[in-house]
């Protein structure tokens, strides 16, 4: 199974992320996102961060999760390449805990691709069948 793939959007870029379960698909969405900004193969893993979010449905959870990744990328001035996600349903809501690993940006070492401005809700989908498929478009 592919971890993720990109599709073209005129002004921006979209991706599908796949997984055998919701956790794995979210982890691969993190990879898809940071491969837009840089090349995750060349990102070390000495920096570790943990965050937790709660959202009202799975699509909102995906949006909030990607937003959170973008937030830590910008304020920590870091790139991430390893994502460990645990999602639990608590009552009406979805709770996500993520532990992400990466390293501080060094543009002499890291590939410099695109800046992501924001995550959009446009065509955002969480589809669960034999596998889980996520779809998202980010604003560049």
């Amino acid at each position, binding site marked *: 199974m592919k971890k993720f793939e990109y599709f073209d959007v005129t002004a921006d870029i979209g991706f599908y992320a796949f997984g055998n379960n919701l956790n794995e698909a979210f982890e691969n969405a993190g990879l898809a996102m940071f491969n837009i900004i840089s090349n995750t193969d060349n990102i070390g893993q000495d920096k570790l961060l943990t965050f937790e979010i709660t959202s009202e449905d799975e699509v909102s959870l995906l949006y909030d999760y990607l937003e959170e990744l973008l937030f830590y990328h910008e304020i920590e001035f870091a790139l991430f390449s390893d994502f460990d996600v645990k999602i639990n349903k608590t009552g009406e809501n979805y709770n996500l805990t993520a532990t992400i690993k990466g390293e501080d940006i060094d543009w002499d070492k890291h590939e410099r691709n695109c800046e992501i*401005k924001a995550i959009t809700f446009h065509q955002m989908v969480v589809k669960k069948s034999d596998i889980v498929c996520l779809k998202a478009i980010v604003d*560049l």
Partner: protein
Amino acid sequence: MTIKDEIKKIRDNVYEIPGSYNRRMRASGKLYIDDESFDALEEGAVEQIVNVACLPGVFRYSIGLPDIHFGYGFPIGGVAAFNTRNGIVSPGGVGFDINCGVRLIKSNLRIEDIEEHLDELVDSLFKNIPSGVGSKGKVRLSEEDINDVLDYGAEWAVENGYGWSEDLEVLEENGRIKAADSSKVSDKAKKRGIPQLGSLGSGNHFLEIQVVDEIYNEKVAEVYGLEKGMIVIMIHSGSRGCGHQVCSDYLRLMDKAYKNYKIDIADRQLACAPLDSKEAQNYLKAMYAAANYAWANRQMMTHWIRETFENVLGKSARDMDMQIVYDVAHNIAKEETHDFKGRDMELLVHRKGATRAFGPGREEVPLKYREVGQPVLIPGTMGTASYVLHGTDVAMEETFGSTAHGAGRVLSRSQAKKDYNPDEIVSNMENNGIKIKATSKNVIAEEAPGAYKDVDSVVRVSDSTGIAKLVAKVKPLAVTKG
């Protein structure tokens, strides 16, 4: 039958989408576009004009400008005004990059004054003004400072030594919307804003040294202080991560609000709230604060541009007469009074990828330009010309005083990378006498001029329909890109 078959041509380059197209429409749609662009226009963008025309309190028209293209929720290159009495505000009608805008700085320099120094100027500008993904500004702000930036905008910048006090007179809103309130901006947005203040950004944002190539209207050009052969500098930049986060925060909030207020919307990204609601008022105050951040940002860059010219050319910026011509916001919503059949209407005008083009006599236009209407700055793409136009009475009557904002993207980034070789682009530009400096080769291919709609046709339609009239064409000599 498609939606485009329903559109009626009213006059040359102006079309109407009748309000009868869809039962939910509360206003008609209007399009300012030439025949060629009309044929190429995506139906999705037309649907978006219609969707906006269905929102509560929408006044008269939902408008598509000459550079209209598909956006998220609202189209890009669109204007919609809402009655403040019963209308709404939507973060999707402003966009992620709040107060993305353009600033033009003039000088008394000619090509021969900078020719020999052009390489050094570009290299120094590139060094002195941080750009590109993952770039930090050169200033370290405290948490207190960021509140002042958000509340006072360009005024904060000038008070802190970035630029001249007279700069403020020639910025839209004088570089500060007073109704801004930093307490409505989330800590997340502030945290993203702190390290990035004083940076250009990436993508289609740029900093260019240009020369005035052609004057179309001598009288207005003289009022704006522009003449053929003059060296000018253009900045295209916005509110960075701070503004993006404000938009995201309030999109999420409005996503709940529109359901609570039982507003019927066609697309989640049209999420909105009634103007008299707490959600709407908080968004407006936060959005204005992000707009102020963008004005402070462009003001700081102006200061570093002047400093760079001073260092390289060995003259003071005052001696080089490096005054700001004007500064426009092209992603914003503002409370404005517009005349309708002799009555003053209080409206909230959303401009998403649209430039204000206020005509002669409006008090919002700086005194020295008031007789001829405000300067309208329309940036081109990497290596192509940009334009100065002036606001008109026609714009006041037809488009809530608005026109286009630039050249919309027509090719995706990956297609542009397939179609264009960055080395070839650089050598083509160099053959045309344009120097370029970018953070990566990728950005050069992605931003290839051919990946964008032709800006010449965008300004031609604006001029021919009268919603902003041509004043001058400027062409790049040197470009720096994120």
